[in-house]
């Protein structure tokens, strides 16, 4: 059933509890807009995000996945985001290598005070995914119908 409708991307944003989630909160309370296409999943730390989470999100229909954590050096658990950084660097590079379009994954460091950055990042990311269109290379066909 292909009805020509405007493409509504599904974006999953993994946000760490201490900085980025609070940043999202601040964006909200400051009345800064970002598209409702972004679904936030709160995690204790960016380091909690297993590569499988990213792939699962794509499997179940996400068109883009972004991971937000505290700025390097500011991790609530001191070093979590340093590990996350290495992991995501390698994972995203591997996904590029498999031919998944580059823009579909992103890491951004957002502090609790950066409501503006949060909103800007999400706006940019959604725009990018809109330009890339629907994710077909990493989705599971079974979830499409």
């Amino acid at each position, binding site marked *: 059933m292909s009805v020509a409708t405007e493409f509504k991307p599904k974006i999953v944003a993994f946000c760490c509890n201490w900085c980025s989630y609070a940043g999202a909160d601040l964006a909200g309370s400051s009345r800064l807009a970002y598209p409702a296409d972004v679904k936030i999943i709160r995690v204790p730390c960016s380091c909690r995000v297993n590569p499988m989470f990213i792939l699962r999100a794509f499997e*179940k229909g996400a068109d883009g996945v972004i991971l937000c954590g505290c700025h390097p050096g500011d991790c609530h658990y001191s070093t979590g985001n340093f590990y996350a950084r290495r992991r995501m660097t390698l994972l995203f590079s591997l996904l590029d290598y498999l031919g998944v379009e580059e823009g579909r994954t992103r890491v951004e460091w957002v502090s609790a005070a950066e409501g503006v950055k949060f909103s800007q990042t999400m706006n940019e990311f959604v725009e990018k995914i809109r330009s890339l269109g629907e994710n077909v290379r990493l989705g*599971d066909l*079974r*979830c499409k*119908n």
Partner: protein
Amino acid sequence: MKKIEKVNLPALFAAISEEASLVLPVKNGGMTNFALWSEDADVDLETLKTVKSAKDAFFPQSETLYSVHREEGKLKITRGELMDEDFVLFGVRACDARGFEVLDKVFLSDPVDSFYKARREHGTVVALACHAPEESCFCTTFGIDSAEPGADVDTWMVGEALYWKANTEKGEALTNRLSALLSDADEKAVEEEKANIRGIMEKLPYASLTTEGWGGDAQKEKFESPLWEELYKPCLACGTCTFVCPTCQCYDIKDYSTGEGVQRYRCWDSCMYSDFTMMAHGNNRTSQMQRYRQRFMHKLVYYPANYGGTFSCVGCGRCVEKCPTGLNIVKVMKAFAEKEGK
């Protein structure tokens, strides 16, 4: 007996696929597997053993049985589709052809498996005699004649021609449909080819392998043998042997959540896997030795006990070639024969 020149095979394939989909050995990335024919497919009738057997055509590795959706607050169940179009399975070897009979006994006896039955009814098997049997072959051990597969249609590649002989009604129907491409031929060339193949079969390294000592009555004696403890050790517990096997028929039924609903599908299972026959209370085979034993006991003891003495191995030798650690059913049979002084 009919025949067609080798150069005209593409025309034959095109003619077959006009009214039925055609599945045959196709080379991809250096490996040959059964796949749907298309004009640019790299058809490979030389390779004796496709990596996976031809069993997928009737019993695919995974298939959806039904799916459940939510629709207007109610659950809607959609049945998986039964095969309703004819297809031709071309280039099957004698061992794989016999493998279908092994599967038939399981899936076509009560309760009949409707998915399997539909495929079986719509499929016509065109077998190809083995021009050059290989060292890992031992189909003769199970009474199979690779020179005369006995499928719906048997074919022989002799020199620059493919000889064609229908054996069943289905085979006759296909032959009639293709009559414009097939010409009459005498049996002489084929008789020579058969004699040639049988001559090679006698010279194979496994030619003297026998099933002596195995069968439905050997259950207790074989099950309790201390030999298993020695034999299983290198086993990695991967599923290569089971997934390339033309007769392995165990399957698992699983649910997949699509987010909007559930798809219930079945997929091949492997007795080598730790979750094989897992039930609510746990697993009744808890060690790799037990799982390893299960595979060979099933093929050489349990199956013959259940199905009138037929063995559930056709001697294709795929496990011999593919096991990452060099284990296989022949080594098991030989080890028992040696132990029992036979």
